């Protein structure tokens, strides 16, 4: 379920530039290369997961210019010149983001495969809705499937992170 990096003589290559987690990257991609595969295979950012490549599961959610998108539904060439934030770019140096810390403290992680996408979707929520209700939190992650937790602790973690950020402001 993947696409290896460029090379291999199939089709034309396009030079694109992506700002990922604040760093500028120039990469060559094919017209059909998905953003998620550039992140995972060319930039080695395997924190962004992939569970379906059809936009159904949300495991590959990243922020594109601050908005959450399924990076398996975005062609790399479409992201040319845009800013992307992945789970690796959420922490400030070694200081975890409030959401990351809340996911740990509230035991919102089991297998962890949905976790990066969950955190990114929740990050997007808190950036426009700093004090979400439980319903808003559930809606914000409705596109992120989790098969382990039943979502209860994830929702708790999102609401707790919102509280933490409120105190910090």
């Amino acid at each position, binding site marked *: 379920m993947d696409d290896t990096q460029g090379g291999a003589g199939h089709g034309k290559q396009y030079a694109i530039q992506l700002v990922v987690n604040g760093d500028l990257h120039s990469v060559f991609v094919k017209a059909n290369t998905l953003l998620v595969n550039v992140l995972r295979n060319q930039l080695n950012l395997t924190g962004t997961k992939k569970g379906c490549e059809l936009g159904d599961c949300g495991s590959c959610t990243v922020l594109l210019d601050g908005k959450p998108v399924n990076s398996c539904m975005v062609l790399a060439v479409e992201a040319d010149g845009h800013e992307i934030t992945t789970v*690796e770019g959420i922490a400030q140096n070694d200081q975890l983001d409030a959401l990351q810390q809340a*996911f740990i403290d509230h035991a919102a992680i089991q297998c962890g495969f949905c976790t990066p996408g969950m955190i990114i979707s929740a990050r997007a929520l808190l950036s426009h809705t700093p004090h979400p209700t439980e319903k808003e939190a559930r809606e914000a992650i409705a596109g992120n*499937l989790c098969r*382990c937790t039943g*979502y209860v602790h994830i929702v708790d973690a999102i609401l707790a992170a919102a509280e933490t950020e409120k105190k910090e402001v």
Partner: protein
Amino acid sequence: MMREEKKPLMTGTAAPRLDAWAKVTGRERYAADLYSDRFFWSGAKRAGIPHGKLLEVHTEDAKRLKGVVAVLTSADVAGSNRVGIIRGDQPVLADKKICYAGDPVALVIAEDKDILQEALDLVTFDHEPLPGVFDVEEALRKDAPLIHEDNPWGNLLRLVSVETGKGASAFDECDVIVEGLFETPFQEHAYLETEAGWAYLEEDGGLVVVATTQTPFRDRNEMALALGIDAEKIRIVVPYLGGAFGGKDGITVQCLLGLAALHTGGVPVKMWLGREESFLASVKRLSAKMHYRLGVKRGGAFHTLECKAYFDTGAYAGLGETVMTLGLEHAGSAYRIPNVTIEGSCVYTNNSVGGPFRGFGVTQVTAAMEQVVDMAAQRLSIDPLAIRRINAVEKGDKNCIGVTLTHSTGIKKCLAALSEHPLWMEREGWKMKAGQFKKRGVGIACMAHAMGYPAAVPDFANAKIELTMEGRFRIYVGIVDMGQGNASAYAQIAGTILNQDQGAFELVQPDTGRTLPSGSSSASRTTYVYGNALIIAAEDLKKRILDKALSFFKTARSQDIVLGPGGIGHREGKKKISLKKVAELFGETERTCKAYFRVPAATEMMDRIYLGPHIIFSYGAHLAYVEIDTLTGCIEVTGYLAVTDAGSVINPQAYEQQVHGGIAQGIGFALSEEYKVTEGRTDTKSLATYIIPTAMDVPDMVSIAADGVEETGPFGMKGIGEISISGPVPAVANAVADACGIRVPRNPITAEKILQALGKQNKQERPR
């Protein structure tokens, strides 16, 4: 990474997982996250037809494609070319026959993924179509086409029957008899991480396979036989899994990857199934058709049970017959029933391939049994909770197959806690407040779940713990952590014994080259069996550390010194010696302690049921609040309570997660999940058509741990992994019956089925 405070770990208190930090930062590397500068892709050509004789596979066109490394068929497999832990009836690459649409007929290795896909499309095969068998009862007819011609019982894989007391003749002694036909469909695990792996040959000829599996040691033996390689030459490494739930219990990509790695000249090879292929090729919860008849005495005591069940194992045996058998062992749920007749047929079809799924057969029978219990309660005008309290088993009672319960048996405690909970006490008021065109109902269900393997299969673990030269502790985790958190529970157990904080521990994930054989990550056994072994090993290591450390102190009595986070101190003095210093006093072999533990098993009534009975069970009592829109049939589970007896709790957060997760999968099974196969072809090919619950589809869930201690368990615990998945189907079905007086005997209970049943009910009620 680790916090500054060094608080020793302690069982019974919440502690974050050791893998939490790596998982929230995206640094955890799963099997699918392995890449290198140079590697090949591999993939299987799937048959796409349900049943046929395989005549010839054409690989020439694919082989000619630039960038294709190899195209392999069954002729390239040196070993038996068969896997399957009991029967060994499933080919690595199809040779004579195709038995379901997911059978692989060729394996392609290519330089990149695009070329791989193109090459797979170029592989073709000739076959002679055979009529398919898609229904369990039709499969057992004399004239049914045979799937495995060499099976002496035709399409019947195994018949299991149990009779106790007077059997069905005791129905004559019953005052009320209720019966029904219940069906549960195939269920797909839908773990977020599809099957993946990475394999390569080492210079000395050793084969290394990193794979998503629950069973590394078993896989190694299966791979050795199937591929014709010495098991000693195979090393299987298992990172944390992205979910499994039984679906990675056994061979998925391992043999194909191993075979591929033999043909790449040392270049690593990767395989990662797409979602559609994962759905097609992975095992499913066996669908079941269950005829139930329950006879009850006037006062509400269950007297006679008859259960006749058919389980669809699909094209291959896998663990299908053990799945059905565990179901039959639980056919009477958590009740005392003196006269029982149980018969189950596990049947081959050309549908999917059946296999383990959390609940392992128990989820199916509990769905049926707990509904007939409600039907009996209704007939007798007894409250559904009261009838369960009358019949719930206690320690010393016999279960439905006549085996005496000698271990902790807490179902009555579960029911007591449920009866005192506001969700139960306030149910009538809640139901009254239903809005216009809405109906509300409350349903309950009990469940039991055996822990560990059946008696005839030795259930053991080998723990290994090391004091490192840095003065830390390294646990060699013998059992895969597929997400449930058993690996962290091991640290918590060892931390409690060694009085160490979380930062003192490193976990080595299962690796046949480094960790010791400890069985599968399944059967609700992981913490119980490995935890028990680890307690012995950690106690041994603690004693060794204290003995060595004595030389630093002016005392000869080890009780004068105490092991604490990072070091050893004197009970009275201020002197403290670091563990690093102590480690230097150890010889290389002394720093590591190993221990073996075997789960207590039945010694009597071994012939009562296939592979023998279980003796340790967890219990649960569930309650569901359901609201139905009578105009649209739409159903919503708005509240849920689970009371569980899984002994003492090691980590309350992790315990709650296991319960919540099981309920969510159970609610999915109750309301929306059905892996549909028509004439052997999958209708539900993606997560857009196979609907698992989102955060909008499950309620806030309440989990309560009933008081109780399992004396044989590590710190008093017993299995918590599976039990909760068996409650939601019957609890929701009973709630629907409570709300509207209708029964939907085949889950998922969809809006369409509810509307249909409501329509039928209206017709019956309308005066003629």
